[in-house]
């Protein structure tokens, strides 16, 4: 179960590391601001079928324009660091689950 209090920092690899988490996430339009927006706004933890990520979090970006689904792992460098693994624009069923859990109605992009 994801508890933000367990973590201190977001762990990104060098952007020039093409196999690193930052380069991968940028290819999916997930950057540092998206991660900050999702974790700092109205995050909801969900479970996905057939995906064994440690943490899957849905939330709006900082402008509340787009809901994002982000996968995280506890960093192998330091257990208090949180590593973004991948992410995407939330799909319709994920948006519904965010609405159900948060009690909010999503008015942004779908």
């Amino acid at each position: 179960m994801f508890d933000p209090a367990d973590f201190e920092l977001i762990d990104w690899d060098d952007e020039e590391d093409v196999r690193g988490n930052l380069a991968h996430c940028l290819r999916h339009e997930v950057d540092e601001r998206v991660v900050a927006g999702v974790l700092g706004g109205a995050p909801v933890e969900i479970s996905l079928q057939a995906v064994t990520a440690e943490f899957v979090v849905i939330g709006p970006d900082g402008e509340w324009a787009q809901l994002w689904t982000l996968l995280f792992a506890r960093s192998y460098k330091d257990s208090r660091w949180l590593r973004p693994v991948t992410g995407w624009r939330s799909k319709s069923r994920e948006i519904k689950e965010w609405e159900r859990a948060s009690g909010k109605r999503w008015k942004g992009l779908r």
Partner: protein
Amino acid sequence: MGAGKWETVEGFEMTDDARALERRLRKTAGSGENGVLEGSGRPVSPKSFGQMLSVRLDASLIGALRDLAQARGIGVSDVVRVALLGAVEDAGQRHVEASLRTYVSSGWPMPTITFRAGDGFVARSGGGEAGTGSDYASVSFLT
């Protein structure tokens, strides 16, 4: 996949295994529709995180940064933060914040940008002295 799994593995092997796991996870997550388990969602407390930025630098640049940091009695990270604040300010960004962790005890004048109170810390603008009450200074500027 808890952190403990990696504690008995050393060096490169640990890193390679962890990154391979991440790549497999990305492949699984990207292989079509991953149905959300209905009813699994639960709100979590929002939190603002610092973010680790990794940058490859030449040894000569790192050496120069270290010399500068030692001369000022501050950390290399704060030297980098101040330089980046200046670069962003020059580019006309409207609002940026940074936590300078070593300036408070260094006695070195704070950089000439607009300071804002935060976490019990009071700072002055225009290169004023750092205040007390926290182990770091929260710095921001508005243009």
